């Protein structure tokens, strides 16, 4: 973004405006050091997408955010809200500069309420910290993005994060009961609450979920907690080819077993993660695809029956072997590999593009797998394919061809994904299941939606944020 164009659309942060920002959020929460600005200018999508901005703010409470938004509105300064920076579509990248609002200081778990099965948290709470706090009271926070050790709840909500347990518990939207939101003009809204039914007016809270901080700033969340699952077991099925893995998924899903997770890793994904972790999965040298399946049951006997049935289906469909985790150590060994594919890819290729996130109906998974293979050939790209296959959600992770510059690759990889997205949409799917649109998939979003739908998008944005200062350049075009 050229400086001239920026200043054309938005206000400039003069020393006077900076003082107003400091008055709003307290000077100790305002950072303008080169090093601070640099490290908040990009997210996990990649440093190549970094955008300069002017002021980093780490507010301590909703009142400060409200005061900040009043100043931002007055001077028309862009405000981009940021969680842990683990996003994979560049939603937290401040395309138009201005202010980055990091929620890291608002990281308190305010309440775990067993009676209402609800947690009240600030947006900077790390997902896994909430999971632990809930588990200590015998409850489960069921959100399980692969970045659970890192990502913030606020970011989970902002991207409607999915992850490895969506088939059983749904995505983040299903876990949000209520929230406090500061609007673009600085008003504080209390939306939803500790209840699970609500036909009381437009579902404004739902619009805040998955909209990447373009409509408001979440300052508190009330989240649904589930009872802890009964007994669980993890299975790792090794397949000699993709086809037998894909047909197994359909069988597993309709087996009647209670499935918590059904994750797919192809050969390259397993290799990259295993190498990074200095480990090896069993049968790795002859496996083209793994399924990692987690099952739940009330008793050991039921669990045994469930894994025998599900494992049996995999064997029947062609699995060479099905491994059963006997302990937490075994389970961790399996899940560690699944959780570290992105890290493994980045260790091998720092420019690996992790943003691929297409979704198709489950019945179209076989077809999209073949299309991915064909497109890889056509684009001369190698992908490590993995994902939440029972949700029809696949992550083709593209490695940079050796002879391409990182700058060219940043564009080329997204053009490649845009091509895959078109195919996914043709099959009745969408371009992103959980990573979001961010700055990297905006053109693909515009290309796949009708003018009528995009018009409503713009109208919604204008209703919440008439000046367009909340995370500009995301989800809608900047006017």
């Amino acid at each position: 973004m050229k400086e001239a164009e920026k200043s054309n659309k938005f206000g400039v942060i003069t020393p006077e405006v900076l003082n107003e920002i400091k008055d709003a959020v307290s000077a100790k929460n305002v950072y303008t050091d080169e090093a601070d600005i640099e490290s908040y200018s990009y997210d996990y999508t990649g440093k190549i997408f970094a955008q300069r901005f002017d002021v980093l703010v780490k507010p301590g409470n909703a009142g400060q955010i409200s005061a900040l938004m009043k100043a931002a509105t007055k001077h028309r300064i862009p405000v981009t809200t940021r969680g842990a920076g683990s996003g994979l579509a560049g939603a937290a990248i401040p395309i138009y500069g201005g202010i980055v609002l990091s929620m890291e200081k608002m990281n308190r778990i305010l309440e775990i309420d067993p009676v209402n099965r609800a947690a009240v948290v600030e947006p900077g709470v790390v997902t896994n910290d909430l999971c632990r706090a809930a588990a200590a009271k015998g409850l489960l926070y069921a959100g399980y993005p692969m970045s659970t050790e890192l990502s913030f709840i606020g970011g989970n909500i902002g991207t409607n994060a999915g992850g490895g347990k969506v088939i059983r518990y749904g995505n983040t939207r299903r876990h949000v009961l209520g929230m406090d939101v500061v609007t673009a003009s600085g008003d504080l809204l209390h939306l939803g609450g500790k209840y699970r039914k609500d036909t009381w007016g437009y579902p404004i809270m739902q619009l805040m979920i998955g909209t990447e901080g373009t409509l408001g700033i979440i300052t508190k969340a009330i989240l649904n907690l589930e009872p802890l699952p009964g007994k669980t077991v993890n299975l790792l099925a090794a397949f000699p080819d993709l086809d037998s893995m894909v047909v197994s998924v359909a069988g597993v899903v309709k087996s009647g077993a209670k499935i918590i997770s059904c994750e797919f890793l192809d050969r390259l994904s397993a290799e990259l993660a295993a190498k990074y972790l200095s480990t090896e999965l069993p049968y790795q040298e002859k496996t083209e695809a793994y399924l990692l399946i987690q099952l739940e049951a009330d008793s050991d006997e039921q669990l045994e029956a469930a894994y025998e049935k599900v494992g049996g289906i995999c064997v029947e469909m062609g699995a060479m072997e099905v491994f059963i985790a006997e302990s937490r150590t075994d389970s961790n060994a399996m899940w560690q590999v699944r959780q570290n594919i992105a890290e493994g890819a980045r260790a091998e290729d720092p420019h690996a593009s992790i943003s691929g996130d297409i979704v198709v109906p489950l019945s179209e998974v076989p077809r999209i797998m073949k299309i991915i293979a064909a497109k890889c050939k056509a684009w001369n790209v190698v992908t490590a394919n993995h994902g939440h296959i029972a949700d029809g959600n696949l992550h083709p992770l593209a490695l940079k061809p050796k002879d391409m510059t990182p700058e060219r690759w940043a564009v080329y990889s997204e053009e490649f994904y845009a091509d895959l997205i078109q195919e996914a949409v043709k099959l009745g799917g969408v371009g992103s299941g959980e990573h979001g649109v961010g700055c990297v998939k905006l053109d693909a979003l515009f290309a796949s939606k009708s003018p009528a739908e995009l018009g409503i998008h713009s109208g919604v944005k204008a209703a919440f944020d008439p000046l367009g200062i909340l995370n500009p350049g995301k989800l809608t075009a900047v006017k």
Partner: protein
Amino acid sequence: MRIAVLIKQVPAVDSVRIDEETGTMEREGVESELNPLDLYAVEAAARIKEAGKAESVTAITMGPPQARRALSHAIAMACDDGVLLSDAKFAGADTLATARTIAAAIKRLGKFGVILAGERATDGETGQVPPSVAELLGIPALTYVSRIVELTEESITVRRAVDGGYETVRAPLPVLLSVTKEINKPRLSTLAGKLRAKRARIDVLRASDIEADGVGLAGSPTRVVKVMYPKVTRTCRKISMNDDHEGTVREAVKFLADNSFSDARVEGVLS
């Protein structure tokens, strides 16, 4: 040749809670698992059998009836059958009484060419049972075995970890080995293995089935009289960088020097 693997069911390490009042382990609702270090012994036995040097592998454990699960795990990995030593009279045993019980059972079960065990159990952490069993059986004990170099019908050559390095030793069979984590990478159980474990033979031996004196709590010369929970206390001093960078660094270095880091000093140019 037959092989025996001595195994133990232990509380899953990350679910152990100690009651600070009584100093005892809270076992209520605690998950159990096969002692992680025993997996290496099971794997070592499996590899000997797969190399065609043994016709069978028997897993042996002493414990309550639910310890059958640990035997099933060992069988699902690679063992052929299991023996559970379970009797109220065995309860509360220390390492010597446990070794007496296991040694008596092994005598009753017949000849094993190689007896394998993990280095130690993750709950007791003593590592005393395997060599005690060997002593009671009157056979050599090779501890901390990190590699089996050669196994013949008469003898075994192993590399064992010792202070500062390794030594390679040979012993005649029968022999008892306790193995370290270095020896192999244990396999995961397979579905086929789990199904086999369901059908496999697991014999239960009671006190009356074996000839053993001095078992259980009554036969234990040692008593746990007190368990202390180590208190970890850490203090933190936070030094924030202000505009006087050099002063801040000097303050940090002085703090380290004053607190047993006697080598701490400022080197080079601070800017």
